[in-house]
């Protein structure tokens, strides 16, 4: 029988299934229906039950693997080792693995690829099952927008096997009408993984919607002028139900944390709405946000590069416009 599709669920710091894993499960289910392949969810953690139960809202069958060695350890190596061992031992061995394109997802995918000798297609913005063409057999076709969205590519695997990393918001998570079943995977401890101990977990901010998952991003650049400008942007983002983003210049100035930096050495985002204030739109920032559905920019410099790719470009004092826009949205909300 042709190999199945496994969705590897990611567990957050509190033991819950991540939002992106729900989306991956929904995308995996669609792939399973289109291909007729079996689909299975897998959660590997020291306490996998809560996340496995959540994954079963989206998939008919889920395996909860209680990995004692995951306690106090960096997760990816443990997850990759367990999933590779399960795949080797499975009656119906998997052909494809779906994970979220998160730091842990990428780490796990790299290790699984090396262990299983199969390829990886990362940062999928679209996914479909298609019949054989040229050098690729029947299988998933993955659309990606590399180079900051200056190109759109469609790729496949040259064998009937591969790992796919999904971008956030590729699909909306849709639960099953009747929830699936959770079975316990093999437990015990595995010792083939080099030890990386977690000595301490330092929490410095509350986990809001990440800038990569947000539907609306209010972003600030050097033109914001200082940390006070980001306080104003945070208020505006709150009114829009969005997240705050920043350019490298604003992060380097210490006005915003690296976690929200958008661009070449920061995050790549694709929100429905991007609002940029005092953002010039230099190439290093542009490659991280130019595939946003709608781009609005406010800048006092009429020659700012962002004018060339914004849908609406307002020439004006960004601080005054932020204040007026915040007031207008507050009035609208009544």
């Amino acid at each position: 029988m042709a190999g199945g599709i496994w969705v590897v669920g990611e567990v957050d710091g509190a033991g819950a299934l991540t939002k992106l894993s729900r989306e991956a499960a929904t995308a995996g289910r669609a792939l399973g229906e289109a291909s007729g392949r079996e689909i299975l969810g897998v959660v590997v953690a020291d306490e996998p039950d809560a996340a496995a139960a959540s994954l079963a809202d989206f998939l008919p069958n889920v395996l909860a693997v209680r990995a004692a060695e995951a306690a106090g350890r960096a997760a990816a190596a443990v997850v990759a080792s367990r999933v590779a061992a399960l795949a080797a031992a499975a009656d119906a061995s998997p052909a494809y693995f779906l994970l979220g394109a998160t730091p842990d997802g990428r780490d796990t995918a790299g290790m699984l690829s090396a262990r299983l000798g199969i390829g990886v297609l990362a940062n999928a913005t679209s996914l479909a099952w298609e019949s054989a063409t040229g050098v690729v057999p029947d299988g998933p076709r993955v659309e990606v927008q590399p180079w900051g969205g200056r190109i759109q590519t469609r790729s496949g695997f040259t064998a009937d096997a591969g790992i796919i990393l999904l971008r956030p918001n590729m699909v909306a998570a849709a639960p099953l009408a009747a929830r699936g079943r959770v079975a316990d995977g093999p437990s015990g401890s595995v010792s083939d993984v080099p030890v990386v101990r977690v000595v301490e977990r330092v929490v410095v901010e509350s986990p809001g919607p990440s800038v990569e998952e947000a539907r609306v991003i209010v972003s600030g650049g050097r033109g914001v002028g200082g940390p006070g400008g980001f306080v104003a942007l945070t208020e505006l983002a709150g009114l829009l139900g969005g997240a705050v983003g920043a350019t490298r210049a604003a992060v380097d100035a210490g006005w915003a944390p690296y976690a929200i930096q958008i661009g070449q050495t920061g995050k790549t985002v694709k929100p429905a709405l991007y609002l940029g204030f005092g953002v010039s739109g230099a190439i290093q920032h542009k490659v991280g946000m130019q595939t946003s559905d709608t781009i609005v920019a406010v800048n006092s410099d009429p020659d700012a590069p962002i004018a060339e790719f914004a849908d609406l470009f307002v020439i004006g004092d960004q601080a005054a416009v932020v204040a007026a826009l915040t007031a207008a949205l507050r009035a609208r909300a009544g």
Partner: protein
Amino acid sequence: MRIVVLLKPVPDPGEERLGDDGRLDRSVSAVINGNDEYVLEAALKLVEAHGGDVTLLSMAPDNLTDPIRKALAMGATRALLVSDPALAGSCAWSTTQVLAAALRTLEFDLVLAGDDTSDGGAGVVAAGVAALLGLPYLSRAQRIEPVDGGIRVERLSPTGHDVLEAVLPALVVGTQLLGEPRYPTLRGIMGARSKEIAIRTLAEIGLGDGAVGGARATTALLEALPPSPRNAGRIVREPDPTVAAAAIVGFLVERRAI
């Protein structure tokens, strides 16, 4: 401490394009991948503080030595470049095999790699290298410091950072937060001319059996399209911020964005 830095020459960001063969055109001017410069800087600081040397390891066409020469000018000790015509069109899996095989020919305490690359961006190669070599793997580093017999890394998490520890040898993947890379000095540039860039073929690192490279790619590009064109933007030149804000609200309502 003997450190190997995985360094990728990439097209200047914004200049990437596909060649007629559907592969990344590597004839455009190349630079050091942005994230790799941060880990190189971290490596140079580590050996300045604790002794040792820095070896660069790259896989690239052998005409792309400018970025490697720059990294030598910044202070790296030597470079190993794996270059072979069979590697054109390699996938991430092949790259992983090649870097792991090349590392097997080197002696090291620590391998450093940048978070991801601007031309490929999958960010999966370093993790695969660690898995193949059985090395402890510590990614998303904002800080790297040696501790007795090992390494301590602050790894970015969604809510802050985790403090990780492992024994050496280990592989660490670093981010921009490691610190601004230095510029090469004139003395560094002069000195780099006499430093060695050892070029090795696949056979010379034990992979001459055709098991890796473009012909064994695990993925295939089927189609490449320019992005859907953006309609020409609207420009508002309005000195009164209240009127400008009203124009933005009107636009967002029209776009059904709010």
